[in-house]
């Protein structure tokens, strides 16, 4: 019986270790080796004390936090409007949101160059190459990640609850604030947590926007590994990035452990 179970579990486990864990171990190992292959902490010291690393980690956190905040606000707003304010074409809009989820992220950045670039429809000077543009692009792309679970939660919200709240004297904004938003909160938080994770690691949008001064951790990995061929330093940044993501992921799992439906919905 045990042998049969092992036979089933072993192949996927080997594949998981071989294709995911082992490369990560190699990256981590590389970050502790010098040019001669000897063990050292010098690379870590050099990377962690460098100004560009501080700027990268600052940019990464600020962009991820800003984009997530924007996604939470916009995603909640759009979900409430689509679910609670009936208008012709609401279902078509909802389906369009699903379609955006299937697009590659760099497409948004590419479209921004046609919108806000020097020859774009709405040229905004240096905006296209600013941190704000990156945040806006990430909000545009990741808002559905909050909106979708929020809409799912709203579809489960009984209309009688809203009606009873109104009958008790609550005005529409009071119903929204005291009944709708508290019930949406777990779903929005789950979507927001996932968005934070994804925006921390976003690479395509930042690369395609091409903002020279907006250096993030994934961009720094690319610069160190591909541009300057400083593999050990690239590995250090990558390890920091993975550690940051894993920490957030574990936090996310811990917070939403008791809210299976919403967490599963976005995970």
């Amino acid at each position, binding site marked *: 019986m045990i042998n049969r179970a092992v036979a089933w579990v072993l192949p996927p486990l080997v594949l998981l270790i071989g294709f995911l864990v082992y490369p990560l171990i190699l990256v981590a190992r590389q970050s502790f080796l010098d040019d001669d292959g000897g063990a050292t902490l010098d690379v870590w010291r050099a990377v962690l004390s460098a100004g560009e690393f501080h700027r990268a980690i600052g940019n990464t956190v600020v962009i991820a936090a800003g984009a997530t905040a924007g996604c939470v606000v916009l995603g909640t707003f759009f979900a409430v409007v689509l679910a609670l304010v009936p208008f012709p074409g609401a279902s078509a809009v909802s389906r369009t949101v699903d379609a955006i989820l299937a697009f590659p992220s760099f497409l948004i950045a590419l479209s921004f160059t046609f919108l806000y670039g020097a020859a774009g429809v709405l040229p905004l000077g240096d905006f296209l190459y600013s941190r704000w543009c990156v945040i806006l692009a990430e909000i545009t792309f990741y808002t559905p990640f909050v909106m979708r679970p929020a809409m799912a939660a709203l579809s489960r919200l*009984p209309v*009688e*609850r809203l*009606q*009873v*709240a*109104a*009958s*008790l*004297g*609550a*005005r529409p904004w*009071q119903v929204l604030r*005291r*009944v709708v938003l*508290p*019930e949406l909160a777990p779903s929005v938080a789950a979507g927001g947590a996932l968005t934070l994770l994804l925006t921390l690691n976003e690479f395509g949008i930042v690369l395609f926007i091409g903002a020279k001064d907006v250096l993030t951790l994934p961009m720094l990995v690319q610069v160190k590994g591909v541009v300057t061929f400083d593999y050990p330093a690239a590995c250090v940044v990558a390890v920091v990035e993975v550690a940051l993501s894993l920490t957030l992921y574990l936090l996310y799992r811990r917070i939403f452990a008791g809210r299976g439906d919403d967490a599963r919905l976005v995970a």
Partner: protein
Amino acid sequence: MTAVRFDSVSVRYGDVTALRDFSLEVAVGETVALLGPSGSGKSTALKALAGFVRPASGRVLLNGHDVTAAPPHRRGLGVVVQQYALFPHMTVADNVAFGLRARRAMDSGRVAEMLELVGLTGFGKRYPRELSGGQQQRVAIARALAIRPPVLLLDEPLSALDAQLRADMLQELRRLRDELPDVAMLYVTHDQTEALTLAHRIAVMRDARLVDLDTAEGLYRQPPSEFTAAFLGGANLLPATVVDPSGLVRVGGVTISATSAAVLRTGDEVQVAIRPHALGVTGDGEGVPATLTGLQWRGATFRLTCDFDGTAVSADVAAVEGLPPVGARVRLRLPERGAAVVTR
């Protein structure tokens, strides 16, 4: 004094008319049950009163004021619905206080008073998920009453409860009704027992229309229509001929006494409503001939079904000893009194 008045109210959902030309008055302190099958328009009438749907025509008046176009939060009504609609993220006390806070009239004493009224003192800090169905419904009632509504609307409030709990809650509602003489109640149900137990008057609805309106006893004893006779108490409708305008009718060769709301003329062909419990079934002896077509044990009684000249007749009897088997000829014993001529 009139608390609620529907004045020829019609409600449409697209091409479907959910409520047609509905007129009704409910007095202060009165409980009126809207009774009818699914799709009869009873819940729509309640929604029109609460402001959840806008009538296509007609007027809704509360204490003499036209509120047809007023939003729900300006009507000040208490609403209790089938699935309780409690706010799951709030404690019981916060649920009860919801309306008071929304009106900036928070009064913790009032919250405690309401919880005491529904027998939930000490439950204030619990969450709805920690309560049974019956307790949740009590919270919903306390929440609705906390704002001192002049009218309490109850939309199938006991439908989600099991039979025993439903019976208990029905008694509770009856007690509440008696303790709140200033509150008019509109009670939507498809359950005749609830309507008969609670309501001073019953409005019977069918196909988006009000078909009959009278006191519970009046409708039960003298149903004005075949539909009401059958829906309220499941009366049998038997063809009869008027023998004497004073109320004597002949059913299958047997003459019985029947009440009538309309003037009878000798020789008129009419329908008489006879409740199943008023009928007897014997193997032989007196009564009209019929064929026993079914037998169903219902605990305290047996429900017998018979075929009487092509009409299916139900009879509830305490015992079936001595009865012939299903398919045999039997005698239906008609009551000397208690039958009612149905004019529509």
